[in-house]
């Protein structure tokens, strides 16, 4: 969907703060930890990302990154009936739970290592495209949690890699476990931007088969 997250090529953002650190404030670190250590049941990565896209656009584009994660963690848990709105606003649980075991740094490292989750899966359908094929992307905005950015719509590119089938975000954001073939597609800068900096420059995107048609 054409939400505030779809930033590629958008203008008026000004200079990049090239010297900015990983965190400016202590709460940013704590939010990062909270997001990785606590998740409501049934959460998928695609529903997490899609939920971020539904934030008020003026907020999405104004507040620090981990403030968005904080709001998203609360929104996802409220949506799933895991916390209530009142609990989030008060910061207190209506029913207290038994403290769980503490994870040591080693436990955290082990948990982190196990986050190398695979999104690849095997499907029966053979791939529609081969490396070297010329494709055209869907020209219209796609509803839901699409991963075809607006700047690459209706554009002609070349398949440079096939990765087998990967879980499909538009389905994942609805809780469905469906996969499609995934390709890396290379576009010439001049095919995406009329005022491109150098026409030989390339932009490569990882795109699922439903986004593509033969060109």
């Amino acid at each position, binding site marked *: 969907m054409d939400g505030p997250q779809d930033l590629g090529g958008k203008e008026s953002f000004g200079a990049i703060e090239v010297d900015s650190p990983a965190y400016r*404030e202590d709460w940013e670190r704590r939010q990062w930890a909270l997001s990785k250590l606590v998740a409501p049941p049934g959460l998928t990565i695609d529903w997490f990302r899609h939920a971020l896209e539904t934030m008020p656009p003026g907020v999405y584009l104004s507040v620090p990154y981990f403030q968005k994660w904080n709001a998203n*963690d609360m929104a996802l848990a409220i949506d799933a009936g895991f916390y209530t709105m009142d609990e989030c606003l008060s910061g207190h649980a209506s029913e207290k739970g038994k403290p769980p075991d*503490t994870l040591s740094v080693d436990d955290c490292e082990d948990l982190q290592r196990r986050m190398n989750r695979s999104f690849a899966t095997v499907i029966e359908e053979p791939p529609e495209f081969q490396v070297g094929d010329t494709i055209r992307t869907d020209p219209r905005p796609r509803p839901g949690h699409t991963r075809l950015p607006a700047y690459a719509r209706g554009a002609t590119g070349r398949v440079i890699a096939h990765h087998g089938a990967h879980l499909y975000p538009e389905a994942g954001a609805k809780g469905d476990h469906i996969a499609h073939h995934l390709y890396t597609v290379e576009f010439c800068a001049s095919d995406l931007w009329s005022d491109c900096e150098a026409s030989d420059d*390339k932009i490569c995107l990882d795109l699922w088969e439903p986004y593509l048609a033969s060109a």
Partner: protein
Amino acid sequence: MPSFDTRKIGEIHRQLHTHLPSDPALRVKALESLVVEKGLVTQESIDNWIELYSERIGPKRGAEVVARAWSDPDFHARLIADAGQAVKDFGYEGHATEHLKAVENTPDTHNLVVCTLCSCYPFSLLGMSPIWYRSSAYRARAVKEPRKVLAEFGVTLPEDVTVRVWDSTAELRYLVVPERPKGTEGWSPEQLAAIVTRDSMIGTMRDLPPEPA
């Protein structure tokens, strides 16, 4: 269970925005106290996760991988063929590295990584991303005017060097392998790793210094 309902979650976001305090530190404090009271996590676990990411996981991991690829042709071949598998040699697999792809700079190609739709990043290999990587300005501009972006980072690319921007729109993550600088012949992997910077593995730096920083 999640509703998977776009309108519903958007409405919850709007309500939260209206009712939460504007100070994000207070918001995070509220969430932390809530989850601790609910018995979902302890404050010590949070402290330990933070320590993990400040002490153990960071760009030094990626630098080691790059240095070994420079030093060991067999590892180099495996890194290019399947980087997600190759980093397991180091035990560096983890958050968002399963579908890792190594892309190499050459004298006539420069690689730059961005995630325009969110802020995907190979955390387990590079640690927490810099704020600029997650900023709207970088996400918006890297795909449209990579050379102006690079210039802001102090990198002036000759016209005959092609830029390849990798927008990580799926679960693949990209690691830029910078060129090994001249004058580093005979260096140990440790010496080499010391000159590989985080920005050089994202692509916002190109020329590494010929001596350990």
